[in-house]
């Protein structure tokens, strides 16, 4: 079985304030996760704001250097003191998708410029192959090459633009895509389009995902593994089904109880007041 993601004693301490009066914030506190599988998987990381989810993503993307510990993605060490792959080799194996697609793309450039640049600079393709790679990536997210080329960000809806950023991430054929809150800026009626797309890419194109979210319902819906984080620590980790149906940690139970579902009300409510009828 291949090691898809493994973190060993990952720590990250942010220092705030001046040199002499620094305040330390432990954003990651001894994070140990091991995901081994033969087939590609979707790993969800859930938790409240400030729990260290985004720091974990940034560490894997090499946007932050961990204070100690290391991280391994598909048998390659990507963070930590050990040997590191070159930048291009790294970007060919891990790609990001960010929260707000309107901020990820500049308003003053055609969006296809980003796609072509990724194909030429990261995937190392010739200009002609790049066009085919872009067209293929766009078709796998359900968009047409001709509908995208030459357009600016304001000509797309948030959902379409997020699909374009998924297509961009697919071009170098990475083994892992790190998606940090990819649907929180997208309208509720179209979130499931992106979520289902992740599932399809896992099954048909063999991409693994690290899906960072605070929405437990969508995490349950698509993920194979779930890590629940609180104050920098992973308090619960395991198969999604097992964690959600039989949570062991009090915090996971609290999170599950707080989701506003449309199945069961939090408390029996006095049926609408008398004036209603």
């Amino acid at each position, binding site marked *: 079985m291949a090691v898809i993601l493994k973190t060993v004693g990952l720590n990250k301490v942010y220092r705030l304030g001046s040199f002499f009066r620094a305040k330390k914030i432990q954003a990651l506190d001894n994070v140990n996760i091991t995901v081994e599988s033969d087939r590609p998987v979707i790993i969800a990381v859930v938790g*409240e*704001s400030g729990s260290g989810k985004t720091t974990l993503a940034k560490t894997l993307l090499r946007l932050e250097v961990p204070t100690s510990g290391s991280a391994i993605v598909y048998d390659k060490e990507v963070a930590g003191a050990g040997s590191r792959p070159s930048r291009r080799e790294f970007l060919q194996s891990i790609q990001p998708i960010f929260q707000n697609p309107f901020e990820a793309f500049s308003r003053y450039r055609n969006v296809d410029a980003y796609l072509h640049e990724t194909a030429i600079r990261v995937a190392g393709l010739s200009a002609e192959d790049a066009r085919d790679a872009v067209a293929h990536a766009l078709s796998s997210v*359900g968009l047409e090459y001709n509908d995208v080329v030459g357009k600016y960000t304001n000509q797309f*809806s*948030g*959902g379409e633009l997020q699909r374009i950023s998924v297509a961009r991430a697919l071009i170098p054929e990475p083994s892992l895509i790190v998606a940090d809150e990819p649907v929180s800026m997208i*309208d*509720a*009626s*179209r*979130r*499931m*389009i*992106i*979520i*289902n*797309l992740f599932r*399809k890419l896992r099954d048909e194109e063999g991409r693994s995902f690290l899906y960072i979210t*605070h929405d*437990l*319902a*969508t995490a*349950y*819906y698509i993920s194979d593994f779930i890590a629940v984080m609180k104050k920098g620590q992973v308090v619960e980790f395991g198969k999604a089904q097992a964690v*959600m*149906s039989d949570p062991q940690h009090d915090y996971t139970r*609290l*999170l*599950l*109880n*707080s*989701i*506003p*579902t*449309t*199945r069961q*009300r*939090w*408390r029996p*409510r*006095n*049926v*609408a*007041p008398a*004036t*209603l*009828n």
Partner: protein
Amino acid sequence: MIELNDIVVSYRTGRGSINAVDGVNLQIPEGCIVGIAGESGCGKSTLMRAIYGDILSPMSLSSGTIEYGFNDSSGKPVTSENVRDEWFKTLSYIPQSSMNSMNPVIRIREQFIDFPGTDPNKKRVLEKVREYIGKLGLPAEALDSFPHQLSGGMRQRMMIALATFFQPNLIIADEPTTALDVVVQKEILLLLMELQEQMGNTILIVSHDMGVHYQVTHKMLIMYAAKAAEYGDSDSVFAEPLHPYTKMLIGSLPTIGEDRARHGIPGSPPSLWGDLHGCRFAERCPLATGLCRSQEPPLVEHKPGHFAACHFAGADLPDTGDAGWQ
């Protein structure tokens, strides 16, 4: 009873005038929580601003009237003409971002006594405020702090305290919990429900989370492209949605413990600049026929108290299969 009589709210822009709320007729009974849902740009926040009376250029109430069903201090009925005098007397507002709505450079207690029209004796007011925020589960010291010293949940609680202290008849809450995480969100929503039960006032709550609406509201309004698509008792709307848009919206929510495939709603709402004729949802609707594209369905009562604007209200949706995301 709050009555909206065919209100049209428009924005004046360089390209001409655009109707962000286009002919909404509603009757909201007293003493219930009404949820308003719809996608971004459907006019829900504009409708809230119109009801709140915060109508400033380039926005205008171009036709229709709003009757609030209660009187001001001189005994005159409150309408859209004089509603601005009622702010923080009989009408209050809970915004989405509490950090941006409080004055960052003065203490919270000073913001409480800043309101016009209350007791001239500030000390007595403060005593009452201290007692009141204690009831809402806030420590008394929170009053003496600056907004940035409180956590997001405490600040939002403080906004609720500010908005409910005067026992207003109508509270408008525009996405009050969107910026909070689920654990805090539940506390805030339960607090709001409890206060509503005690005071028996009307709350209008905007949220894009259908789960929040199910937990909190007595009545639901679903808006689509500046129009009301469906309006009725929440139990009835969630159990038997009539409009295909509502059905698809509720059906797209994943639930823990259920493994059925979910689909988003493909396509996007029509541009309000375009030539709008027929049903505005027709382009995205699996049930649409020639009738839908040519004739606009009116909002009619299909069951007692349950309205929908659809020619085929209540009809079953075809199974979209696995191609739904395309």
